[in-house]
């Protein structure tokens, strides 16, 4: 049974909507990965930092959650490779349309190198298997970015010029 500070949205079984009554203090993290063991590992690591974690194994579920619960989530951690989904489009949508910081996770280093090449500082990246201390470091970086929201928009303007969709 999960504690009330985390809710899980699975794909295979029924979707149990366990929404907390009050929005707890602490940052809202949405973790998206079709690999359930990875999801479980990340959830456990993140919970140690007392964040409010929601896990999700499907991109469509993730987008619905992000739209419905705007303001609840502060950061998204997502694998870029998910079957039947354009991971790249999905992440760009979160970053630009929904306007949340995204940490990309992948066990494929090459994918990360390519993404870095295209997007530079726009995303943060972690290679699986992820160590707990890596999560800690990246987290500070993400918070800093969020607080520098205005500066980020200035910077991302120049990225968008280079990356016309």
């Amino acid at each position, binding site marked *: 049974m999960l504690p009330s500070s985390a809710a899980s949205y699975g794909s295979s079984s029924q979707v149990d909507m366990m929404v907390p009554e009050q929005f707890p203090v602490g940052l809202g993290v949405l973790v998206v990965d079709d*690999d359930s063991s990875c999801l*479980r590992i990340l959830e456990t690591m993140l919970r140690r930092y007392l964040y409010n974690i929601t896990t999700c194994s499907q991109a469509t579920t993730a987008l619905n959650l992000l739209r419905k619960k705007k303001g609840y989530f502060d950061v998204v951690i997502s694998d870029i490779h998910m079957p039947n989904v354009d991971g790249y489009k999905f992440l760009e949508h979160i970053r630009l349309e929904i306007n949340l910081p995204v940490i990309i996770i992948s066990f494929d280093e090459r994918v990360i190198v390519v993404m870095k090449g295209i997007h530079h500082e726009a995303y943060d990246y972690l290679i699986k*298997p992820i160590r707990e201390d890596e999560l800690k470091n990246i987290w500070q970086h993400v918070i800093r970015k969020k607080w520098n929201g205005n500066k980020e928009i200035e910077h991302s303007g120049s990225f968008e010029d280079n990356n016309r969709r």
Partner: protein
Amino acid sequence: MERNQQLRRQLAAMRQSLFDQGYLDEQFIQLEELQDDANPNFVEEVVTLYYRDSARLLSSIEQALEKSNTLDFNKLDTYMHQFKGSSSSIGAKKLKAECTQIREYCKAGNGDGCVKTFQQLKRDYATLKKKLESYFQVARQAGPKEIASRSK
């Protein structure tokens, strides 16, 4: 509690042999370190999730390999890449190595090599599953807090 001591010794020995025989690597230790009072069965849960998810992937791979005349090496390589990734989450060392081997055979267009190595992978996958199931069973008997003494 002599019985408990015996169980713990048995548990430590089982664990050590999994490492010695090359079935598990560092990553498994990472999982053990995440196990605590809040998550007393964490390692077992993660392993269970892995076996559940990977079963589907394995049958896709088997289907791909059945078409031995028209083997789609690209597809197979993608599957193996995926399987290797998820196996690395639980520290399944042998399985990772076998995935790498099959990917090499895919690059070389060696269908026979793929099939033979995959048969070995399936055996090791099943063996690891059995060994881990026994391990967790003894762990549960030995007591919830103690999974194994991590002797170096």
